[in-house]
């Protein structure tokens, strides 16, 4: 079939063009590497997220200081935090600057005495101090989250003095058994019920510290996002090649051969599709090798989403090119659509929080459905059942756009 010959020829020419290769492969990989560095996941002197180096300076002699210490040294957090206990706060802070530590938590002297109400019910204000490494992006967020949770739990216990220790026990796996014990102790101490607060409910979010949970991997989000973003660019550029062929007269020469016009157009669109497919596959393989990206557990699911994403992106590129008056217009429209789709469709940030019209607009983009499908595999570790909707939507987008492009090109080139 001559369409296949045209598609293979286009793919060969595209992969021989080093400028095109930079845009298709080098740029997304390099940007991913930079993002990885920003997230502290690549540099050898950056602590891995599952073993954050942290120091605790506990200057408090009371139960609360001990509570922080107990929770931070609890088995649940052992794999996440490599804790050192020290008494020299200044030295510990200096070690952050030298890169030895990612965070230092200082419990001031008299913290428990100030915060826990005395027999008269009087208590004061006191704060713990958390110092983090500004050069690191992820580890400070995690440490801060843990410390805030401990503080929030203590606050709740103090405010809801009548809450019994039993109420805290269910949260032990999250906070550590020591925290639950602490709750029980404080609860018992405050049994006098001098406080008449409404019962408060503890609202805790789960932090992935268990062995079954995967550590946070920025690549699992950004590489699929960038792969889809750069795919859109190369698909639009690839689609424009049919207009370049018209300008260089190779299209007219093709049409002077005994090759049906529909095969020529199909071959051109097929070449763009094949190029995009190879681009995405190379990005998947190279990111897995270079950045240890886990693309999920379903190879078939990944293949389906990749094929349909490329199908939809190349179809859209072909359609926009078919409707464009000339190469310049196709180039401008293609670049604009790539950028807008990238921003709306979740190539740069998660779309979970989108609502209203922005969410509707997001769902009109190829990127959104591609990202929904890819993230279901890479982040959520889903399977075929989890990609059904994105797969169907991408297939429909591809079929409609390819069909429209084929008809429009046919009208345009048969004179």
């Amino acid at each position, binding site marked *: 079939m001559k369409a296949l010959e045209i598609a293979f020829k286009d793919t060969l020419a595209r992969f021989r063009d080093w400028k095109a290769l930079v845009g298709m492969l080098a740029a997304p990989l390099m940007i991913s590497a930079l993002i990885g560095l920003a997230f502290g996941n690549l540099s050898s002197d950056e602590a891995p997220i599952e073993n954050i180096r942290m120091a605790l300076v506990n200057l408090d002699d009371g139960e609360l200081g001990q509570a922080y210490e107990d929770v931070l040294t609890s088995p649940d957090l052992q794999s996440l935090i490599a804790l050192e206990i020290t008494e020299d706060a200044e030295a510990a802070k200096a070690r952050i600057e030298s890169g030895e530590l990612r965070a230092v938590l200082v419990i001031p002297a008299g913290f428990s005495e100030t915060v826990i109400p005395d027999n008269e019910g009087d208590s004061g204000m006191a704060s713990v101090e958390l110092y983090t490494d500004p050069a690191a992006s992820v580890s400070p967020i995690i440490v801060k989250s843990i410390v805030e949770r401990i503080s929030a739990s203590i606050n709740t216990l103090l405010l809801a003095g009548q809450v019994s220790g039993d109420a805290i026990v269910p949260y032990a796996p999250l906070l550590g058994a020591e925290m639950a014990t602490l709750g029980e102790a404080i609860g018992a101490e405050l049994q006098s019920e001098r406080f008449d607060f409404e019962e408060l409910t503890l609202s805790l979010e789960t932090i992935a510290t268990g062995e079954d949970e995967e550590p946070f991997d920025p690549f699992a989000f950004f590489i699929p996002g960038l792969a889809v973003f750069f795919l859109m660019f190369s698909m639009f550029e690839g689609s424009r090649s049919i207009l370049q062929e018209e300008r*260089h007269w190779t299209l007219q020469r093709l049409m002077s051969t*005994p090759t049906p016009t529909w095969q020529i157009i199909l071959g051109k669109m097929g070449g763009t599709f094949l190029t995009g497919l190879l681009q995405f596959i190379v990005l998947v393989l190279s990111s897995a090798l270079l950045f240890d990206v886990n693309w999920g557990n379903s190879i078939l699911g990944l293949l389906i989403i990749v094929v349909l994403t490329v199908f939809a992106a190349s179809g859209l590129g072909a359609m926009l090119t078919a409707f464009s008056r000339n190469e310049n217009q196709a180039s401008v429209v293609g670049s604009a659509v790539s950028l807008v789709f990238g921003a709306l469709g979740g190539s740069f940030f998660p779309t979970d929080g989108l609502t209203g019209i922005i969410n509707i607009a997001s769902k009109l983009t190829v990127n959104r459905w591609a990202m929904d499908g890819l993230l279901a595999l890479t982040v959520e570790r889903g399977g075929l059942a989890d990609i059904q909707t994105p797969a169907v939507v991408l297939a429909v987008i591809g079929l409609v756009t390819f069909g429209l492009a084929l008809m429009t090109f046919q009208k345009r080139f048969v004179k």
Partner: protein
Amino acid sequence: MSQPILQAQDLHKRYEKTHAVQGISFDIQQGEIFSLLGPNGAGKTTTISMLSCLLSPSEGDAIIDGHSVRHDADAVKKIIGVVPQEIALYPDLTARENLIFWGKMYSLGGAHLKQRVEETLDIAGLSDRANEKVESYSGGMKRRINIAVGLLHEPKVLFMDEPTVGIDPQSRRRILDTVLELNQRGLTVLYTTHYMEEAAELSKRIGIVDHGKLIALGTQDELTKLVGENDALHIGISGISEPPGLLARLNALSGAHNAAYEDEMLLLEASHANEQLSDIIGAITSAGGQVKSIKIEEPNLEAVFLHLTGRALRD
């Protein structure tokens, strides 16, 4: 006379605002090199595009080896070779890869394709550089591969649209020799050009095209007889402030006519140029002009074009 291999019958091509081809008709005999001579924009490429089935005629038809370009385009495409004016090749591919690709578009394959690729590379004289990318070739080499592509499937008729545009004299000479050699092997060629010398060298019969019309058709002798025995004078002049006045004065001279002025070049026909030259120079100097150069040509296609259109055959 045998049945012509190509018959163009009252071909018209209309666009929204232009009538690019206005009723062109001609025949080409098998084994003939037929040239369409005319300036840029005359309608040569549009005519070839209709004969190549790239454009559908607005009116008229062309029959090539018994097949209508209107109704049997697929059959026509199999027996014609097209060498467009543009270098219609893929620069990222080597010459051999280009030829293999285009051969496949003509449904060639296997050993036959391989053989034809080698043969056409040989015709182009580029066998030793066949594995280099076309983008690294000189303009002349690209033109030769451009021609080779048109020969791959051994067409019965080869359409060559200005195949020597923009190349050096040596490459041009080589291409003209190639065309003559192919014709000696029996290939029929329709050749368009705006170079009078090329048409004169290659073709026995020539059609002169201007503004979408075939204004003259015949052998060189037949065409030059249109201007009689007149010589063509090309006189470079300067200092002429009122060319119309000078032209009127020159046309009034006995035996001189069709005087035209363009870009400091005076063109006119004269029955006995050498004898009339002093009168002509006198007319120029009395009009305030200065003669910078003089060239006298015996009747040729340039003179025919000038005679028929009142304009020089130029770009």
